[in-house]
Structure formats: structure tokens, C-alpha cells
């Protein structure tokens, strides 16, 4: 067990946003967190690394390798961030400092975590960029000079740079075409196989869940309505919301015009 979220609640002054959520992620898990937009997935994931906005309060405990992350001091949690727990935020653009080049982010990240050779850092950064299908030239660009998908891939490459134990990936393929998305996810899966890291994977994409996840939790209105193994949830959903969610998943069936279109034509 690498991460255990135990009755975590997140609230602001007026209301409870995440309500007593518990879940457990083991080593090597690809844990998919699916759910309604606005149900609190992102906030829940941010609470793990004490990264919530200051006006939100969190209760409960988050155990990471026996340590309660929520009780760690700022200094202690900093040691874990990046090296042990890596984030890929949903807001891929906001993840980059606007006046620093993409490369500088990579370089700084490596340097801060102890890579002293400049040459090596550069080499590693380029490799990381290439692993997500980005050309070397993007290393020298500013964030605003990249397309949405490019930025998102850069953010992914950045987070995987240090081979963390836990990757928190918040909707990381929203800006990617299926080819690039496929490639990135394959890479992620490969990395997981190699390092045995765990992944907390927040997504709306059932295809990805089906293909990669082994565990699954469904969130709605700040609560986990259902969680368990992939097979259990996908094929034997219990909760009404889960069923609905699975049913609504759009699929691309060969030769079939879309449902909406048929309606129109009729």
C-alpha cells in the first residue's frame, strides 16, 4: 500500500466540497478516478500533496508509506513532492511559469533534485521531451509558443522526469489527439512497468480506463459512490450513477452514423 486516503474532507467556509472520502492505492496500481465534472476529483488529488488553495480546509489523513502527509511540515512535504509524488495538473498552461522557457523548467527541476551536470540535464530533458513526441526545438520556446497538446505533453514529461513513486495525473490527455494520446499513455504504462510506480489517474475517458486502469473509483458530489477493481466496476456496476456513466460513454462504431445524426435525419 503506497497511498491511503482516509476520510478526507475538504471544505471552504460555506460548504463541504469533498466529503469523507477514503481510498487506497497499492504499489503498481493504475488507479483511475472517474466522476462527474466538479465532483472534487482535482481537489482531492491536490490535498495529497498539501497543494490545496489556502482558503480550503482539509480534514482526515493521507498516508503515504506510513506517513500522514497532511501532518507533515512544509519542509517535509517539500522533500516528497516531485521526487516521490509527482503532479500533472489539469491546467497544463498554468503549470508553466510564463516568462521561463520550457527547457528552463526541465533544467531547474533536475537541478533542484540534485543533477549537477548541465550536459546530462539537457540530455535527459531532451529525452523526456522526445518520449512524449515533442521535438528538441520546443526546449527553447516559451510556454505560450506551444500548442495546448504540446504543453500538456511537456507537463507530462516534466512530471515523469524523476521517476516518482506516485504520479497524480489529472486529465492529462484532454488536449491530445488519439495518436499522441495513445503514444503518451503507452509510454506511461511502460514507465510504470519499469519503475513499478503507482498512478492516480483522473479521467473522463472510458477507453483509457478500460485499457490501462486496474482499480477504479467513481466520484459524484464530493463522495466516492463506488470503487473497486476494474472488472468489477465496469462489468458489474452497482451504483446507479456508475451505470449511467458507463452507458453514456460515446463509442465509435464502425459504419454507424451517430445517434444524434440519425435523429436528425429521421
Amino acid at each position, binding site marked *: 500500500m503506497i497511498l491511503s486516503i482516509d476520510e478526507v474532507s475538504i*471544505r471552504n*467556509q*460555506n460548504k463541504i466540497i469533498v466529503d469523507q472520502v477514503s481510498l487506497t492505492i497499492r504499489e503498481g496500481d493504475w488507479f483511475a478516478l472517474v466522476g462527474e465534472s466538479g465532483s472534487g476529483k482535482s481537489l482531492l488529488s491536490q490535498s495529497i500533496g498539501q*497543494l490545496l*488553495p*489556502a*482558503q480550503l480546509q482539509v480534514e482526515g489523513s493521507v498516508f503515504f508509506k506510513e506517513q500522514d502527509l497532511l501532518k507533515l511540515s*512544509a519542509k517535509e512535504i517539500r522533500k516528497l513532492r516531485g521526487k516521490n509524488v509527482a503532479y500533472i495538473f489539469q491546467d497544463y498552461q498554468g503549470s508553466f511559469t510564463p516568462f521561463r522557457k520550457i527547457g528552463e523548467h526541465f533544467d531547474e527541476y533536475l537541478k533542484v533534485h540534485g543533477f549537477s551536470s548541465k550536459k546530462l540535464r539537457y540530455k535527459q530533458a531532451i529525452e523526456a521531451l522526445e518520449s512524449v513526441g515533442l521535438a528538441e526545438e520546443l526546449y527553447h520556446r516559451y510556454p505560450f509558443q506551444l500548442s495546448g497538446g504540446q504543453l500538456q505533453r511537456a507537463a507530462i514529461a516534466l512530471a515523469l522526469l524523476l521517476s516518482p513513486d506516485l504520479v497524480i495525473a489529472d486529465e492529462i490527455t484532454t488536449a491530445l489527439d488519439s495518436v499522441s494520446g495513445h503514444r503518451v499513455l503507452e509510454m506511461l504504462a511502460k514507465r510504470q512497468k519499469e519503475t513499478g510506480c503507482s498512478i492516480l489517474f483522473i479521467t473522463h475517458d472510458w477507453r483509457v480506463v478500460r485499457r490501462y486502469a486496474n482499480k477504479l473509483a467513481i466520484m459524484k458530489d464530493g463522495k466516492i459512490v463506488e470503487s473497486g477493481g476494474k472488472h468489477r466496476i465496469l462489468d458489474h456496476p452497482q451504483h446507479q450513477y456508475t451505470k449511467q456513466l458507463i452507458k453514456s460513454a460515446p463509442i465509435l462504431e464502425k459504419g454507424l452514423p451517430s445517434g444524434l445524426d440519425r435523429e436528425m435525419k429521421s
Partner: protein
Amino acid sequence: MNRFAGRLLKNRKQTIQVGIALIFVVMIFIGIFYAFFILKHDPYLTNLSGRLQSMSLQHPLGTDHLGRDVFTRLLLGGQQTIGYSLLALVTAVSIGVPLGIIAGYKGGIVDRLFMRIADGFLAFPDTIVAIVLVGLLGPSISNLILAIILVKWVNYARLVRSTVLSEAQKEYILIARINGLSAGKIMKKHLFPHIVGHVLVLASLDLGKIILLISAFSYIGLGAQPPMPEWGAMLNDSRAYFQSMPELMFYPGLAIVSVVLITNMLGDYFRDRFDVKKEVNQ
């Protein structure tokens, strides 16, 4: 429970601030009452034999170098001082801010022209502006205020422009353009909230600087006309007594500090209201 504690804690700081401001206001009212209904000093009445007295019941803050009651003068002067300096400040801000927004947002030739005009204003020492204006229009504090406005607006315009320059590149401004908002509306609605913070900070401190500027001009005969108990002028008048009676300088100084303190607190309070994210993560 928790929720309530949080709210209370949050409000306590504000309560303290508002409290301090209130205490000042109440003190000022009591003071005015005391001075004008109990002491009944004429703030202009000189009394050379009773000059430079120290505190007494009759003269709560003593008398000045011409034997006038400092307390009464301080209170009477407050009205003028605060009124005039606020007037100067508000006008300078309301000229500078729109111009700065326009220059920063429009860019191009408008911006370049504006920049040169602003540079031009900066090249003139404020003393020249004051002397010329006061010379042309006659010595009076309102003409001096005009001069101060002329000197000060550039600061705000420039400050605002710098923020607008970078903000105007953001996507939400592009969207606003697509949404057909006129330049004026974009400036007013979308850019303005980004600059109030800085402007308030600068303005709340500028109030003090303006009072001091008036005092500096009094020094060369352009500021408040003599018997008028303007704080800056009082400060200036007490220069000579720096060694023999330092408190004479201290009172108007303290009065200015208090006013700036209050405006600064108010400024910060409003700044916070525009700061939608409020707390910084630690």
C-alpha cells in the same frame, strides 16, 4: 464550529483595522468638540508673550512660535490638509488611470505618443510647474493643487500602463474582443480590476507625499498662505524649533502619519476586496 472560528478569525483583523480607524474618527470628533466648544481658541490669534508653551489644560498641545494654540490649529488644518491633498490625489488618479489604460491597451502610436508626453512631464521639475502655474494664476493653494495634479498623474498612468501591457496579452482579453466589447468596455470591465490593487497601494502612500509636497512648496512660498494652519505648512514652520521644541514638529507629523495610516489601511482593505484569491499558500 470550525467554520465559525474561521470566519471570526478572518474578521478579527478587519475588526481591528476598522476599530483603529473608528477610534481615530471618534478622537477627532471629541477633539473638535473640545477645541471649538470648550477651549474656543482663535486659531489665528497670535500672542507673542505666550509663545512656545508646553502642554497645559488650556492648551492641550501647547502653543506655537507665535503663541497660537497648536491643538486648535491642528484640527482646523486637518480639514484643509486632508481635503486638498485628497482632491489632488483623486484627480491625479482619475486622470492617470484612464490614460494609462488607454495607452497600454491601444499600443502603437497612441502608446508612443502618450509615453513621450509622460516623459515630457517627468522632465519638468515639480518646482517649475508649481512656480509657473502659481505665478500665472496667482498664489493660492488651489493653484498649487493643480500643479501637484499635473506632476502626479504621470505616475499613475505609467503604473497602470505597465500592468495593462501584460494583461492585454491574455486570452480572456482576446475573448472579450471577440465578444465585441468596445475597447472602452474592455478597459473598464476587464483591465480595471487588475490595476486597482497597485493604484490603491500607491495612492494611499501618495497622500502623505502630497501633504509633504505642499509643505515643501510652502517653504518657497507657494503653498498654503500663511496663517492657514495647513499641516504641511505647520511642519515647515516648526523646522526652526527642531532642537528647542521638537514636539512642535511632532504633532503635525503625527497627524499626517495617522491620516496616511488610515488611508493605507483602507487602501489595503479595498485592495483585498479586489484580490479574489485572498490568501497566499504558505
